[in-house]
């Protein structure tokens, strides 16, 4: 199997894989220790492919450099960050002899939507555009059917808290939980269970009055104030959304805004009225691409 095929297969299977490519040799005349005559230099285009639980594939031609690149590729798997690093030709830190592009391919982030309602169908559609794997969950088998949510990757008939407990370990900062049931008997257990995970975004639908009541019930259920701030409710950015589709855009826009530190204190601003760079780097992790 070629390196390309290994990367291709991992991406298609939605498994983690990192590909590191040596993209540049800087000018040897500027190196601290110039290459000796006959010294074989690492080759531009050389690759190391790293997958969890398997030996690294590929070589730059220098075993020490290979080892350092593979180590940093592991770190990139954790952080999901893609970018260039500089090394000496034997992998030394603080030298700029070789430039290596480390590209982490992470599985798509997960969005779990609770409540098999019209808003859910629209949210599933928009979330798919953003690259999420989408799971719809509702305890009522009549409503939670794949036919009603063709865009969802999975439709689960279960109580929200029970389902969340089965996937709690998988949820991380890139993932989202959207509670659209606005029925306390589903909402409260779902939010309480979601707060026990590391999920990056947790939103709950409902009017301001519904949300105030929900907040009171969450406090009664033992949720502490410092956890309550994680709950985005009423869900979504204040863009005047009305229809399920517009609401879905407002929810996804909020997820994007929070990834870069949140909307400003004055609420949503237009680019015309704001300052600073249009493209912002994510604070935590890069989003789906």
């Amino acid at each position: 199997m070629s390196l390309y095929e290994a990367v291709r297969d991992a991406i298609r299977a939605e498994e983690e894989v990192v590909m590191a490519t040596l993209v540049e040799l800087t000018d040897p005349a500027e190196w601290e220790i110039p290459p000796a005559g006959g010294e074989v230099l690492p080759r531009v285009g050389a690759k190391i492919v790293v997958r969890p639980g398997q030996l690294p594939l590929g070589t730059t031609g220098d075993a020490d450099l290979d080892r350092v690149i593979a180590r940093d590729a592991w770190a990139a798997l954790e952080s999901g960050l893609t970018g260039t690093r500089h090394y000496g030709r034997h992998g030394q830190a603080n030298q700029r002899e070789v430039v290596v592009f480390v590209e982490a391919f992470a599985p798509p982030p997960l969005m779990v939507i609770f409540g098999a309602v019209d808003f859910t169908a629209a949210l599933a559609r928009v979330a798919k555009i953003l690259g999420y794997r989408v799971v719809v969950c509702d305890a009522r088998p009549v409503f939670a059917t794949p036919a009603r949510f063709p865009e969802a990757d999975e439709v689960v008939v279960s109580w929200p808290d029970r389902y969340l407990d089965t996937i709690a370990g998988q949820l991380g900062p890139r993932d989202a939980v959207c509670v659209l049931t606005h029925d306390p008997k589903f909402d409260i257990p779902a939010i309480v269970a979601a707060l026990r995970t590391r999920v990056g975004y947790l939103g709950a639908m409902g009017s301001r009055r519904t949300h105030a009541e929900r907040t009171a019930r969450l406090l009664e259920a033992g949720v502490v104030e410092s956890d309550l701030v994680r709950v985005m409710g009423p869900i979504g950015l204040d863009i005047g959304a009305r229809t399920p589709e517009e609401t879905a855009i407002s929810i996804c826009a909020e997820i994007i805004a929070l990834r870069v530190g949140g909307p400003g204190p004055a609420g949503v601003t237009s680019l015309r009225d704001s300052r600073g760079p249009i493209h912002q780097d994510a604070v935590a992790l890069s989003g789906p691409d």
Partner: protein
Amino acid sequence: MKEVLGDIERWRRAGRRVALARVVDVIGSGPRDPGATMAVNEDGEVAGSVSGGCVEGAVLTEALGVLEAGEPRLCTFGYSDEEAFSVGLTCGGTIRVFVEPLDW
């Protein structure tokens, strides 16, 4: 990368040689993040993109050159140095694009 795999596979099945161009560095304001990928086959067909449409034409030319020569290239596209770079990004940033034959 993921979004161009389908085209790459189709081209490989048809026996076409393929070049990959990937954004490796973005300095200043850039339209696409590192990892943005454009694939080109030897007939000049294109999948994916590396910018907002500003430099794709130049990357296509580089990719065909890379397939011809069989050697990878690191190309810089930016606004900052008009003498050196005929193709710029309207957003004012600089991107470095690694173009290589898919022979690995």
